[in-house]
């Protein structure tokens, strides 16, 4: 039986905050200045893509490790106390995201694989909440006996009582006052106000307990008071704190909306840490206000800070240019390569005539304008490399860009090369009109004159022609897609990687029937260990290569989705991969691998041997040649 929830554990030090009136009057301004979490104390490394954290009543920090399907319990000195494996009854893996600790010692964990919230009671009981009402839940918090979840699939925040009943919604999908594109976290303050952070717009919004919109702070950019993919929000010490992820900082606001300060020094060296930040995505402030933990998924790390009131040196953040943050998908033709930088956003076109890819142009400026993008995560090239097709889930859009050029002409950089040919707004298709959730196209593949676009929201694929006209919608049978990150069509078969289900499935194209499936299970080890499948490239023998962001390996599956071999492993050397994402095969059979963690793209032969690398060469130590140790044959440890 749950004790009554309160927020005292987050607001112990608040001064002068009036808990009664929901209006944001001047008296809400606390007298004390909140600290900057700038005094580095400790860090914990080696976590498996930690995404969120919360302080437990016993003084430990609970961290959700999304790739690891587990919780890590950390001491404030950064050492590990214990781990809690998260499994379903049938031994399936969970995809944990948001986490919250309740005063009675129970822990809430969002499971993105099942779109629900797990509650773990101290006595070991597990309960599922919110199943069938949530789509793509992200952050979670508990307050006043209720559970609050950022339900980004519905563009809203949903709250329900601690047994899952009496749901109440705040916000709705869209752009505008009180509407959200991608709400990713929620926090509730002592006055019962609901604070929501929307990574898509981006903005933060505040609702009164009765749902009235009180204020919004909106705007994308690097300046203080603006945001770039803010990832989490917290209320503590009478203030509102936002992890401004792509600006590598934390911003602190008064409840009136006034910016108090922003702090965060961007890391310069790879994996630097020790107080310098790299994509901080989660913030947890200790109940006594003495320290804060910052979660950095991209670094597999949590850093602990104490607060101070030093004025930061404005000249500390002077770096202007940086290596590319290649992520997401990649596409290769005979002499053309297109790689993506979703956080830019940016798409880059390379010429492959020389050994090393030479960048000759970029396209996709940030924005909703035609030819722009907000989250370009997947790309496909037409066979003649004349058109590049980009899928953007936040815009519900597929954009076709003309990138043709004279392949024999001398190389030169040309900003005028790319021209927008066509785009399709999938949300405007008549077949979609009236449905509550906009399409989220996030994987794309070309096959025999058709463009296949996997839609995360609808759990189906749109099949378009080369000019983006809709031919049909293709529905698979079997388990519903949760997070299709790669799609490939080979003859009569459709392959799909469903990342958060940790599954690779093969369907019959004709009727969608599920033919074969590889699903990661907790007991699978060795070469069959699959923590976070992401990219896929067809293999000549009818099977496919699958990248695993969690283990840093690339598995090869045969035609029946059985693991044949795996190559690589984590590291910075040759045939080593850090968070490998997009994969593609070029016509000559080479395999290209996008490594988010190493800021680079690696090129391998069709047999998986090292050929080349480009991107952040500075950090690429050709430490060792590919050796027998890096290849693990199927079935062996």
């Amino acid at each position, binding site marked *: 039986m749950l004790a009554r929830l309160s927020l005292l554990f987050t607001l112990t030090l608040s001064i002068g905050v009036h808990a009664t009136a929901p209006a944001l009057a001047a008296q809400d301004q606390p007298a004390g200045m909140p600290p900057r979490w700038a005094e580095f104390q400790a860090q914990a490394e080696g976590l498996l893509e930690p995404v969120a954290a919360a302080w437990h009543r016993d003084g430990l920090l609970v961290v959700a490790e999304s790739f690891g399907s587990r919780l890590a319990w950390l001491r404030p000195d950064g050492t590990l106390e214990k781990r809690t494996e998260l499994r379903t009854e049938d031994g399936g893996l969970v995809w944990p995201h948001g986490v919250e600790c309740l005063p009675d010692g129970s822990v809430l964990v969002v499971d993105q694989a099942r779109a629900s919230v797990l509650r773990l009671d101290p006595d070991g009981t597990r309960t599922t909440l919110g199943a069938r009402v949530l789509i793509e839940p992200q952050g979670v918090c508990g307050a006043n006996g209720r559970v609050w979840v950022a339900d980004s699939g519905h563009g809203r925040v949903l709250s329900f009582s601690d047994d899952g009943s009496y749901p109440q919604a705040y916000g709705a999908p869209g752009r505008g006052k009180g509407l959200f594109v991608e709400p990713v976290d929620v926090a509730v303050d002592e006055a019962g106000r609901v604070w929501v952070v929307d990574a898509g717009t981006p903005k933060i919004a505040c609702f009164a307990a009765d749902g009235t919109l009180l204020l919004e702070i909106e705007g994308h950019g690097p300046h203080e008071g603006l945001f770039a993919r803010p990832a989490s929000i917290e209320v503590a010490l009478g203030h509102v704190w936002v992890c401004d992820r792509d600006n590598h900082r934390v911003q602190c606001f008064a409840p009136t909306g006034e910016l108090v300060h922003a702090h965060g020094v961007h890391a310069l060296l790879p994996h630097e840490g020790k107080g310098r930040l790299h994509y901080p995505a989660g913030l947890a402030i200790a109940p006594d206000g003495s320290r804060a933990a910052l979660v950095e998924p991209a670094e597999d790390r949590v850093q602990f800070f104490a607060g101070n009131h030093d004025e930061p040196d404005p000249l500390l953040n002077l770096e202007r240019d940086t290596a590319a943050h290649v992520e997401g998908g990649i596409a290769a033709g005979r002499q053309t390569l297109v790689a993506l930088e979703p956080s830019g956003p940016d798409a880059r076109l390379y010429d492959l005539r020389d050994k090393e890819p030479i960048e000759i142009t970029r396209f996709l400026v940030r924005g909703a304008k035609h030819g722009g993008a907000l989250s370009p995560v997947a790309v496909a090239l037409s066979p003649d490399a004349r058109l590049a097709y980009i899928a953007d889930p936040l815009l519900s859009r597929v954009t076709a860009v003309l990138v043709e050029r004279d392949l024999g002409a001398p190389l030169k950089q040309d900003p005028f090369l790319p021209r927008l040919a066509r785009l399709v707004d999938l949300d405007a298709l*008549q077949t979609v009109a009236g449905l509550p959730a906009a399409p989220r196209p996030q994987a794309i593949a070309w096959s025999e004159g058709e463009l296949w676009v996997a839609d995360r929201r609808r759990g189906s694929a749109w099949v378009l022609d080369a000019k983006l006209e809709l031919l049909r919608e293709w529905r698979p049978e079997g388990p519903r897609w949760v997070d299709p990150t790669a799609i490939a069509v080979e003859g009569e078969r459709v392959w799909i990687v469903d990342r958060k289900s940790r599954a690779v499935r093969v369907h019959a194209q004709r009727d969608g029937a599920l033919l074969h499936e590889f699903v990661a299970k907790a007991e699978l080890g060795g070469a069959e260990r699959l923590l976070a499948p992401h990219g896929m490239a067809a293999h000549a023998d009818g099977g496919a290569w699958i990248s695993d962001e969690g283990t840093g390996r690339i598995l090869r599956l045969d035609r029946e989705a059985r693991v044949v071999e795996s190559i690589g492993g984590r590291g910075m050397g040759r045939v080593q991969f850090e968070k490998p994402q997009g994969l593609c095969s070029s016509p000559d059979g080479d395999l290209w691998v996008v490594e988010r963690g190493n800021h680079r793209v690696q090129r391998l032969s069709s047999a998986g041997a090292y050929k080349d690398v480009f991107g952040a060469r500075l950090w690429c130590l050709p430490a060792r040649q590919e050796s027998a140790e890096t290849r693990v044959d199927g079935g062996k440890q």
Partner: protein
Amino acid sequence: MKAGVLCLVYLTALPWTSAGCRVPEGRSAPGTTVEGESTPRADSAARAGAPDGPSRAAPVPARLAPEGLQSVATNLGTFRVHHRSDPATIERGKPFRLQAWITREGSREIVPWAELSVDADMPEHLHGMNRVPKVTRQQDGSFLVEGMLFHMPGRWDLYFDVHEAAIVERAQVALDLW
């Protein structure tokens, strides 16, 4: 003579088959269908607002785009945008308007259901205009575009985006301004 403070070199976008862009072997000529594409559907469910073929009421005489205008084909060759500016010469830093007609490529007959949006960029500078143009459909089937301003010297790409239901296809014109 009024020494032009700013003068315009008005370039039409090179059609993609001009010198420098070889037509890949085996492909059809530009402006026709891309290999593998099915013929455009007149009754596509995806094309909201398109007139149904057989069930149309009494035929309306087709309207034509005026002759003698500058024109440019869309980048995939489906449409052609006929246009003129007011003033006739676009000058840097001076507001101007445009008038545009949308036809199918190879025809001067106005496409009645297509919509138009207009924008512009300086690709070298990674920015566009500081203005939001307004496009309004006129009685004669043309589109009036107001509020345009090119504030910096250099190469501007002017975009005519033709909307048909959920799909947008772009035609563009390059201008060099002093």
